């Protein structure tokens, strides 16, 4: 995949529209996913995701092919989201996740056939509780959680993207996990209920 990315970048630099389109199609969901979790506003996340790809296109010549394209792109996404959050002076997040986010989440949950209304309700409620647990994390924790658990990145890559020391990344992840457990338990989804 990385070599394919490098090839696409080379072709895009040579003016290939299809190569850049492929890069956008390949990374639009992860980039949008990271930003939407960080800013927690789908409309804004869409605008910022566009901005990320536009910045990436304009800076494509500076991309070092020895590096992973995804890390480079996530770094741009990180900077774009952080700039936006600073502009809006959002240092904390409301306890409740926005209704729009909940609606999006529920709309995306498939409803398997033959599932009882009770099971469906529980599943949706659990998914909502999980999403809420992520949303309640501090933005710097939320970001490392998404990069680690949603995107499956290595600690080193996360450190490179966020500009944090490796130890801090690990600490953030540890604390974020524990906070998520506490949040789920507080929402009534502790281990005892799931047993």
């Amino acid at each position, binding site marked *: 995949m990385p070599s394919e990315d490098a090839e696409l970048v080379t072709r895009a630099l040579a003016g290939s*529209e299809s190569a*850049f*389109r492929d890069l*956008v*199609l390949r990374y*639009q*969901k992860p980039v*949008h*996913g990271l930003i*939407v979790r960080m800013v927690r506003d*789908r409309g804004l*996340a*869409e605008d910022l*995701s*566009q901005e990320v*790809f*536009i910045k990436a*296109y*304009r800076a494509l010549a500076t991309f070092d092919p020895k590096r992973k394209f995804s890390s480079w792109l996530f770094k741009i996404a990180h900077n774009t989201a952080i700039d936006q959050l600073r502009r809006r002076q959002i240092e*904390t997040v*409301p*306890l409740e996740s926005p209704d729009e986010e909940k609606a*999006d989440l529920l709309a*995306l*949950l*498939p409803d*398997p056939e033959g*599932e009882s209304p009770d*099971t*469906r309700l*529980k*599943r949706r409620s*659990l*998914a909502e509780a*999980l*999403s809420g647990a992520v949303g*309640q994390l*501090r933005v710097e*924790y939320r970001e490392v959680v998404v990069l*680690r*658990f*949603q995107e*499956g990145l290595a600690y080193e890559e996360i450190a490179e993207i966020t500009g944090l020391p490796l130890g801090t990344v690990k600490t953030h*992840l*540890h*604390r974020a*996990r*524990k*906070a*998520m*457990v*506490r*949040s*789920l338990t*507080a929402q009534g*989804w*502790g*281990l005892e209920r*799931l*047993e």
Partner: protein
Amino acid sequence: MGRTLHKSVRQWLQEERLDRLDSAEQGLRRVFAQLPLPGPASGFADRVLARVGLAPEPLLFGSISTAWAWRLAIALCLILVTVTVLVTPGIVYVVFGSLKGDSLAQIGTAALVGFLQRFGEGLAVWQTFSGAGRILASTLNTPSVFAALIFGSLFSIGAFRLLHGLMITDRGTHYATTI
């Protein structure tokens, strides 16, 4: 998916309780894999490419084929309207042409009488409201009532401003936990 999500969360929480770092991380990754994540709206790549100048601005209805479908639909609607306009006079003639002159006069007279009756009823209602309005206007015109109204308005404005201020300042800025 429901049971799987349930199971994944349970396994993850079990690993967390046992403080097994690697297993807990794997567990949480499995949980995340099952959480739906909204992607950008369709046509995202087209919009990005248009903004960097690599592609023309996306069409209003998404794609060329959709735009053609819309054009076709509009053309069909225009044809339908034209046909209706051409056919309607014929239908009206067939329906009303069969009526005789005296029946037409009867219908016309009945319609006129009905209209005048309704008009009279309307005037009666208007007179009632007009009378009530005059009484209200003369009451409001007295200095004491006028002053009370002004005071009430100012008080309401003040109360709304206070409420607005409270709503602004009382926004929750909580963390889920102290970390």
